[in-house]
Structures are given as C-alpha cells and as structure tokens.
C-alpha cells in the first residue's frame, strides 16, 4: 500500500516537473521562496497535525501549479521547509531557533498545539523579521502578538456560541460542565464560560475535570449528576467526548449534551458510543463534509475534499481547511505587499486584508469591520451544529 502511495506521489511529481520544465522557458525570472511549516507530525498531536500539514502541501501545490507567486516582477516557486515539533514545546522552540539561525526573514505557517505555540511565542513575538500564520492552536491572539496571525477559530468563540446555543434550547436552568484539564484553551475559558452562563440566567450545578486520554469518567459524571443538570457541556477532544457521552448515558443521564470538539465517526465507533449519541450536539468550526452537506461554500469544499482525498488517500481532518485558507492568506499578502522580505510591509497588508480578497478561503469566515479577515490578528467563523444520525454526523444548523 505504501508502495502504491509513493508511486502515486512519484507520478504526480513527475508530471509536475514536466509542467514546470515546459513553463520554464517562458517565465521571466523564476525564483524559489522558502516558507517554513512547523507541524506536529509525530507525538500525541499527530492525527490532526498530519491533516494540517497535508493541507499546507496541497495549497503549495495549487499555487505552484498556477505558476507560482507573482511578487512585483518576479515569480516565485514556493518551497516548503517542514519541521516536526513532535508535539513537544522544547522541540518546537529548537525548530524555530533553527529557522531564525539562517539570518533571513522567516515566513512560517503551521503550529498545531497550544503548548508549542505558547513556547515559541516569547522568542518571536517582538521580532520584526518573523511572521507566523498559526492554523491550529486554541489560543486567543491579540495585537500584542505582533508576529502572529490566527486565521483559525479561537476557543473564546466556542464559549460564546455554546452559551448562545444552550440559551436557545427550552427549559434549561441547570448546567453541568466537564472540561479537559490538559486543554489550555478550554481551561483558560472556564471563568468566562461560567460568567456567560450566569448572565444567561443559568446555574452551573457541577464543574468537573478530566485529563486528555482519560478512560473513566464515572466519578466526575456522578458528581455532576448529583446536581440534576438539564444539560452537560463537555469540553475536550472528540475521542474523549465520545467516551464521556457513553458513560453519561450508562449512568442514566438522558438529557442534552453539548460539546465543541470536532468529534468524528471514528471517535464514536472506538468508544462504542453509537447508541449514546442521541440528544448530543457538537458545535464546531465546520469540516469539509459539513460544508458540502450543509450547503455553505459547498462547491469549493467539495473541490478541496476531492483534491485532498486524491492526493493523500484519506479524508481531510479538523484543521485542514484552516491550514489551506491560512496559507493562501499569507500568499496573497506577499503578492499584495510586493515583497518577500519586508516583513513590516507584509504585516501591514495582513492587518487590512479582506476575506473577499482571498477567494481560496473555504471555511465560513465572518468578515470583520471593513470586510477584514482579522480583528486584532484573530479570525472568526460561523460554527456548525452537528448531530449523530445513522452512523455519521450531519450538520443541522449554523451559528453565525
């Protein structure tokens, strides 16, 4: 199977090389632009990390196939230099050190884990020769993080949408909250979540924690159920959420369960939670499948999903769309700024770039003031509400 895969890569590469050679004669000045990609290709973040890195590869391929980046009079072929942070903070820092050590301005994309991003942030935050487009990580970025742009949903948005969604349901007074205590984003948002529930007139009757990868949720759920909640909000990764839902049902809880985890069918199957998913909803930034089925940017999403599947032989993952869109945001900003090494100029373009200018963005990004993609370096998205029906998740609505 691996052999077949590598053969396919070879075939694509060969065809691509031929195309480049053919066009080389006509191009005026073709140079190479190196863009760094920091990804969690191994370690605990691997599953999502690889899906994110693949989408970056796909974006680069599409740009190069279309002739490369036109910056002023020069056309650049984009070359990726991918580094594996191994899902570890120190490995991420050393990788970033390596990029900086060449003494040239650094254009970087990627970063999946919040711990890795948080670890290299102090090194690059103030640098005038560094741009990082962070396509993963649950952290919330602001204008103070000068080098970082985050065209990816921040957990803060999940917090607000979750409360809005629950408020919209009928007869809900008591809320139980179960949080992954290794998930920096969710933990950071816990006080805000409680505040919002309070403002909405709901009472938090149980607030419990579990650790990423936990297999037993009995004590926590038992404690939450003592408060007789009308809804349980589970905040963590999909596979953990699926197991928690299963165990909540085993303990006799039949009420509404709301998560924001991007849970997928595989999570439900591995947890044997098929029957437990009734009356559970997941609020998440939409995946390609959700957009296709929910009829939002369906065509672009389908084209992306097909291209991804053709190239990598599997479905795209949780942050694939953000990575694809994020890469094009950077590419467009470079073209628009007309420079590859004047970082302040590129940043200036990024600050004002509009969603409409980057037609390759597939996710339902909500334009900010003046149609901008970023508000203080952070993007916002419409979220999808997903429900488990007949062995798969289907979108049942969007929260804008």
């Amino acid at each position, binding site marked *: 199977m691996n052999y077949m895969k590598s053969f396919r890569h070879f075939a694509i590469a060969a065809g691509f090389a031929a195309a480049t050679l053919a066009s080389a004669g006509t191009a005026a000045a073709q140079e190479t632009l190196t863009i760094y990609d920091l990804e969690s290709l191994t370690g605990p973040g691997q599953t999502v990390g690889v899906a994110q890195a693949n989408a970056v590869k796909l974006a680069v391929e599409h740009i190069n196939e279309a002739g490369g980046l036109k910056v002023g009079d020069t056309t650049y072929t984009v070359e990726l230099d991918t580094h594996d942070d191994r899902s570890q903070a120190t490995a991420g820092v050393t990788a970033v050190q390596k990029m900086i050590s060449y003494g040239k301005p650094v254009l970087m994309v990627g970063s999946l884990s919040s*711990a890795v991003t948080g670890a290299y942030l102090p090194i690059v935050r103030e640098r005038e020769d560094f741009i990082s487009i962070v396509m993963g990580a649950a952290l919330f970025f602001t204008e103070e993080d000068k080098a970082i742009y985050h065209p990816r949903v921040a957990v803060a948005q999940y917090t607000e949408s979750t409360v809005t969604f629950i408020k919209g349901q009928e007869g809900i007074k008591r809320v139980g909250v179960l949080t992954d205590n290794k998930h920096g984003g969710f933990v950071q948002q816990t006080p805000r979540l409680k505040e919002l529930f309070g403002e909405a007139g709901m009472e938090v009757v149980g607030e419990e924690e579990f650790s990423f990868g936990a297999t037993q949720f009995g004590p926590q759920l038992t404690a939450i159920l003592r408060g007789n909640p009308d809804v349980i909000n589970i905040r963590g990764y999909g596979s953990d959420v699926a197991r928690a839902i299963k165990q909540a049902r085993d303990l006799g809880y039949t009420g509404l369960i709301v998560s924001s985890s991007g849970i997928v069918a595989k999570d439900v199957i591995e947890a044997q939670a098929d029957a437990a998913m009734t009356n559970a909803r997941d609020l998440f930034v939409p995946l390609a499948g959700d957009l296709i089925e929910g009829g939002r940017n369906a065509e672009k999403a389908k084209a992306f999903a097909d291209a991804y599947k053709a190239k990598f032989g599997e479905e795209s993952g949780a942050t694939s769309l953000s990575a694809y869109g994020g890469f094009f945001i950077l590419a467009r900003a470079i073209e628009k700024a007309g420079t590859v090494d004047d970082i302040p100029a590129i940043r200036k373009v990024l600050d004002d770039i509009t969603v409409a200018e980057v037609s390759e963005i597939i996710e339902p990004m909500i334009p900010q003031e003046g149609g901008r993609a970023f508000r203080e370096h952070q993007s916002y998205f419409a979220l999808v509400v997903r429900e488990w029906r007949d062995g798969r998740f289907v979108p049942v609505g969007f929260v804008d």
Partner: protein
Amino acid sequence: MHRLTAFLPWLLLLAAMAAVLATGNGYYVTVAMLMMLWAILALGLNFILGYAGYFHLGLGAFYGLGAYGAAAFSASYQMPMIVALLVMPAAGALISVVIGPLMLRTRDLHFAVATLALGMIVSDVTNNWVAVTGGPMGMGGISRPGQIGIGALSIDGATTSGMFIITAAIFLALMIVAAIARRSDFVLILRGIKSDDMMTRSLGFSTTRYKVAAFAIAGAIASVGGVLYAHIVQYISPEPFTFFAASFQAFVVLAVGGLGSLWGPVLGSVLLTGLPEILEMDPHVKLLVYGAVLLIVTIVLPRGLASMGRVLSARARASANAKTKEKQT
C-alpha cells in the same frame, strides 16, 4: 601522563563549548544548552542514585519546582534571574530536608515508588492549580537577564549566545563541584551506605543525615536545572516536568552514562538528548531507542558508557596478555 589524561576530558568539553558558540547558530546553541541541562539534572541525580544507591524517580518534581519558581519570580515579580538562581535551589534543598527524612524511611522499591508518586503529585498540581501555575496554559513572559559584566567581558543574557554562556558557566561550576565531591569523604560515606547501610551506621555515621543531604543536593541541582530551563525556553507548561519527560529521562541519562561516574552524565546527555535532537527523531522512535539503549547498556556495560574506556582497555590488555602467553608457550 596521568595528569594529562585527567585533564583531557575537560579540555575536550571546553573546546566543544567554544566550537558551538563560535558557530553562532541559534539551533546548535539551543541544542547544546539542552544537553547541558540534562547533564546537570543527571549529575545531581548521581548523588542520591549513583552514590547512595537510592532509586530517585521523582526528580521532575524538583526540576518543575525550579522552573515554576523561576517563572513566578520573573513573570509575576519582575525579579532578575539571579534571584531565582539563588532562591530556588535553596527551596529545593529545604523541601528535600523536610520531606527527606520521611521519604528515606523507605528504601529500594518503596523509595522508587514513593518518589515516583511525589513526581506525579507535583505534575498534577502544576496542571491543576491554574491560579498559580497557569495550568495547561503554562506561564510565559519569563525574561532573560540583560547585560552582564563590564566592558569586553560583558555578555547579553537576552541573546541565545548569552544564555548559552550563562548555562555553560553554571554547568562547568557544577561539574567542578561534582569532581571535587567525588573524592570527598561525603561521597565515600554515601557509597558506604549503598554497599551496606547498617554497617556504615555501625561505624558511627548517622546515615540518615547523609542520605537526606544527598537527596537535598539532587533536589537543589534539579531546581537549578529548572531555573535554567525556564530562562532558556522562556515559557513553561506542565508537560516537560512529567515522569517520562523529566524524571525518567534524567534516570536514563545517568544510568546509560554510568551511575556514580563523573563523566557519565555528560556522555549520557550527548547520546540521549543531543543525538535524537539533531536526528529529529520521532518521539515514539526516540522512546523505543531509549528503551533499547537502556537495555543493552545495562546488560553489556552495567557501569555505563563512562566505563567503556576502562572495559575496552581491560579487554585489550587481556588479549595482549593472552598473546604474550601464547608466544611464551
């Protein structure tokens, strides 16, 4: 002749440090700092594990203590690094002295499990006491020291090279202390405890006091390592101080390098933290390699890499002897 061979490793070490610094390459300098960091942790562990023979599997607790203390001093109270560098080892030693007599009532496996539990508890606390440690969000905003020294001798601690010099200075100082300690009565008594606690006690030594001292030295040096880590990476989160990331790794570095040897921690660190970093090893592969190296070294070279020279020369001598014998007969 003997004197020269004793100095050779030191010269090599200094030369290697100078070479790394001369490249000015932030990546190599960072990797070298991490190597020194692990050598520091292992040489501290050597006192309680290598000399006294107590399986301390909770070093991460003190490493984390140093790092979180340093982060608090720097980020929350804007104190310079030197404050953390003085206070945290003292705190590490003090805590060790308080809990040491209790922990050291146990030995062998019990002590191993007790220290392991200590490390796990600290990991849990760093992850859950959000108000103080930042929980999984960790703590950032740790500022490195600025300009140190005068005139031509001054360095900028904020740069990676400056931080390297600070780390190297501390590392060398600790190596010299370790080299002196190795020949001291103190370490001799620790080795006596390892070989027979009861007998050592019967000779009139209060072995508990010595064991607690060794435990405290390991804790204090691990805290120094933590302070350095916080200032090298400038961001801390619970993960680097967990059992497999910290306590176990320090244990492996020392065990592979050579329990009770002076250069073992350095050799172990170069092989087990330097190489995997340069080779960008997949973390699972790295663990697999750790396991295999640990297994092979323990069985083939029970006294660690540091004994390799001795073992090889003994073999060479043995085979030379055999040959001369053959000639004679």
